[in-house]
């Protein structure tokens, strides 16, 4: 299957990363952040000062205790941060030694994934939540491409870990007995599996041609209950089922206007980005985005689902004349409905009515307009283009959380 996406926009932010993999600097501490997961009340399973090994449970979902979030590195739990509503914000581990828990991989696939914490790699469509352990998806979408600005080319990374990726796909096929759809970039070289459950689809075009939201639409899966998983987590699953241990490795793209030598770096899950970027940056104030410039989040640790780090110059506080600038407490700027928004929306969704519905908090209208087919990253280009400066990703998350509660 080949799909060409006509809509989209490639933003040239700065020099693209060289697609070669090098080792990143040593990481002194890692963190697992609760903010990467939505709608979960966490129950912490470790205490300050505890020694943990890779794969040891750190916290779990209070409502679905089978869902475990495991330690991305071995070391000592040094900080447990909470949000203002007493939910878990993050757990920081100071790295020490390399010890990993061994899992019994002869057990059922689902049990192993849940115990190892790799279950959290799945995201449901709609809503983008971690799926229930007893749910079964109509299809699993493996995203093996990335069209984000300054992203790594997954084909390069997959070449180094072909065996793990192949094993990972087999495991997924075993898990669900439904179809596994591997979405990859057109022209990227792939060793294709001869498994009746695994199908391949090639996509080409500008961003968002590489987003699962776009793939779902073209594959005719809008409105279905589908799980999505990134290639890097399929590699982790493959590694787990080959060796019995969790791998803590992540290969990410490090780029952005402030990076001296943008390229791919081999680092750890949840790595402290200050450590990683040591000696990589140009002079000057900077801010670190974990994820792409469009849909990432300012953070000092690598996010759970993130495959890239973007370093921007720190925006200076512009002091304009009061005459022209917006005073404090002013109402939001309007949406100027130009036709450019339609050019970045590959789904059959009307962007301006959706943006208006989100901006006024009309979740019911947003649902009718198709917001359940979307996740935050799918509307990131709308935020980029909108002259009002509205963050539609954040509004969409509010809409999805509200709609999910009603269901």
């Amino acid at each position, binding site marked *: 299957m080949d799909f060409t996406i006509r809509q989209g926009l490639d933003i040239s932010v700065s020099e693209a990363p060289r697609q070669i993999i090098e080792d990143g600097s040593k990481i002194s501490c890692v963190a697992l952040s609760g903010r990467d997961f939505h709608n979960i009340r966490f129950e912490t399973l470790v205490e300050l000062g505890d020694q943990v090994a890779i794969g040891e449970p750190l916290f779990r979902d209070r409502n679905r205790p089978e869902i475990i979030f495991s330690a991305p590195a071995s070391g000592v739990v040094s900080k447990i941060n909470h949000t203002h509503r007493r939910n878990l914000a993050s757990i920081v581990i100071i790295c020490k030694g390399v010890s990993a828990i061994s899992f019994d991989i002869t057990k059922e696939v689902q049990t192993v994934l849940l115990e190892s914490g790799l279950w959290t790699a799945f995201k449901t469509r709609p809503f983008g939540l971690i799926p229930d352990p007893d749910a079964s998806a109509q299809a699993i979408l493996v995203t093996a491409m990335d069209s984000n600005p300054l992203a790594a080319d997954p084909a390069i990374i997959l070449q180094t870990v072909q065996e793990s990726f192949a094993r990972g796909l087999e495991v997924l096929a075993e898990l669900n007995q439904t179809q596994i759809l591997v979405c990859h970039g057109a022209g990227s070289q792939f060793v294709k599996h001869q498994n009746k459950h695994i199908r391949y689809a090639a996509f080409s075009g500008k961003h968002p041609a590489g987003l699962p939201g776009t793939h779902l639409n073209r594959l005719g899966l*809008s409105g279905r209950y589908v799980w999505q998983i990134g290639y890097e987590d399929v590699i982790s699953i493959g590694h787990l089922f080959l060796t019995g241990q969790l791998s803590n490795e992540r290969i990410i793209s490090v780029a952005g206007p402030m990076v001296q030598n943008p390229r791919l770096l081999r680092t750890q899950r949840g790595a402290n980005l200050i450590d990683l970027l040591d000696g990589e940056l140009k002079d000057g104030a900077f801010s670190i985005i974990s994820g792409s410039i469009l849909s990432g989040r*300012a953070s000092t640790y690598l996010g759970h689902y993130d495959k890239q780090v973007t370093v921007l110059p720190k925006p200076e506080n512009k002091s304009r004349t009061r005459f*022209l600038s917006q005073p404090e407490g*002013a109402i939001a700027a309007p949406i100027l409905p130009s036709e*450019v928004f*339609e050019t970045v929306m590959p789904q059959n*969704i009307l962007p301006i009515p959706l943006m208006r519905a989100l901006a006024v908090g009309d979740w019911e209208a947003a649902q009718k307009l198709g917001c359940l087919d979307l996740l935050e990253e799918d509307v990131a280009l709308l*935020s*980029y283009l*909108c002259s009002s400066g509205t963050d539609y990703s954040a509004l969409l998350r509010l809409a999805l959380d509200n709609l999910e509660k009603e269901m």
Partner: protein
Amino acid sequence: MKLFFLKHYFPNPPYLRNAWSSQRIAFVTLLCLLPPLGVALLDKGIALFMVVILSIVVAFCWQVIFSFVRKRRLGLEWLVTAIIFALFVGETVPYWQIILGLSFGIVIGEQIFGGRGFGFLNPAIVALIFLAFSFSGTTFAEPSPWFAIATMTAAIFLVTARLISWRIIVGLLVGLIGVGLLSGKALQIEMLSGSFIFIIVFLACDPVSSASTNLGRWINGLLIGGLAWVFAQTTGMPTQADALIPAIFLASIFSPLIDTLVVLQNIYVRRRSDA
């Protein structure tokens, strides 16, 4: 071209924003307005100049009042409104009518909705329509062919920058030619007025007062083209300001309805394809 590639980084998401802030859009529109304004001023001299200054003062006063009350930035949109209004109102209209008409247009056509971008009407159009309906005999100014030539660059720039929609322009032309053919009155080249391109670019294609979906933009353009013939009954010139401006006014009143229908159609289509 550098304007297209300017980048702005922000401390909170979206971290990267397009260079086209509403302020910059207003500024660029203003620049696009300058050549036709210059041509018109050369043509009509001091009389038009006085009208332009008066319109700018009136628009500025209202903008200051509403900006102050609403705690909003001043922006530049009021300047665009004032210049467009002044270009069409002509230099023969009494000053008190200009003040009254423009005040009505700005307050009722724009500011009561919350300012530019929150309503569905173009204040300059509302002001002109107000004058045409209230004081019989008011006709809009008809500029020279040089005016049209001065607008061409701006038109091409605004379309390529996607600040205005080519769908409305093509729809409008199709509507104009199509309805003309249906009623047996072929559109001839002599019918093209000097203000034709200007009206299309700055009034018909105003993103705020036209439909905001692609299908809606086609319908909106067709509607303007068709309605222009209706308002051209007396003069037989559907491309003149006297016909086009009421047509655009009526079409912009219909644009929210058009959008609603397009949204319903989209919801229906998506429901069927999901099922």
